């Protein structure tokens, strides 16, 4: 829904939050600064993930709660971030916010490969039931978190003004 004189926020048509070439501004984004922002954010996100995995290690055969929590919270945060960036602001967000916080920090914090390795390790430990529960629970928790966080952020953003319905 577009009011006269206001266009949908740049990037609201995007599917892929890392980079979506259907969005002209992202197709043309300056590669040097963007890559530096992604690298810096990735270092921060991966450090946080590594720190949590050291503080909250899973014993062999035990349920990998740390990875589950990392992925679920990262998915909730990307829901908040992307709604704020693509639907929220009266002023355009800084062009490096998505590369730094979304692609870098949250992309570096969450991990698909560790999730898959956790599953494989549970299988190797003879914990097939645990492995399947972990695989399914992570998907449900991650998708539930991104949906709930995006919905809540939309409600909050819409409460601030009448013109915030952008799909």
């Amino acid at each position, binding site marked *: 829904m577009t009011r006269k004189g206001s266009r949908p926020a740049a990037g609201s048509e*995007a*599917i*892929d*939050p*890392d*980079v*979506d*070439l*259907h969005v002209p501004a992202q197709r043309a984004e300056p590669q040097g600064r*963007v*890559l530096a922002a*992604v*690298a810096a*954010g*990735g*270092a921060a*996100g*991966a*450090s946080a*993930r*590594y*720190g949590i*995995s050291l503080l909250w290690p899973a014993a062999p055969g035990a349920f990998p709660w740390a990875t589950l929590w990392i*992925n679920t919270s*990262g*998915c909730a*945060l*990307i*829901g908040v971030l*992307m709604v704020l960036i693509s639907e929220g602001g009266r002023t355009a967000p800084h062009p490096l916010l998505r*590369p730094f916080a*979304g*692609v*870098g920090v*949250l*992309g*570096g*914090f*969450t*991990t*698909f*490969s*560790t*999730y*898959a*390795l956790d*599953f*494989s390790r549970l*299988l190797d430990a003879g914990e097939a039931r645990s492995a399947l529960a972990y*695989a399914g629970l*992570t*998907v449900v928790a*991650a*998708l539930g*978190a*991104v*949906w709930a966080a*995006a919905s809540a952020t939309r409600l909050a953003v819409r409460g601030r003004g009448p013109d915030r319905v952008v*799909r």
Partner: protein
Amino acid sequence: MNWLLVVAGAVVGAPLRYLTDRAVQQRHDSVFPWGTFVVNAGACLVLGVLTGAALAGAASSWVVVLLGPGLCGALSTYSTFSYETLRLAERGWGFLAAANVAMSVLVGLGAVHLGSQVARQLFA
């Protein structure tokens, strides 16, 4: 020291995800997020091979930290995967959303397992 290795891996992994995603998207015009799918599947395969090599004693512990939680951890992503699944569903492409979840999970889990089994035998 290990923390520096994780950072070194992530500084390469996160931009590599962004660049691979762009490169894959330049080769097709569908709304299906093939870029993220390729990146996650690739990171899972590399992590599987790395784990298998480590179990066979062919990868030292610093390489495992650099490439495991560092490179593969930052190369792969759950947040991007879940957000694009949500966007596909919101835009009315429920089938693509479901296909993205099923394919990413099955291929990712399979790639780690396959990579580690093959590497364990190759490097034994």
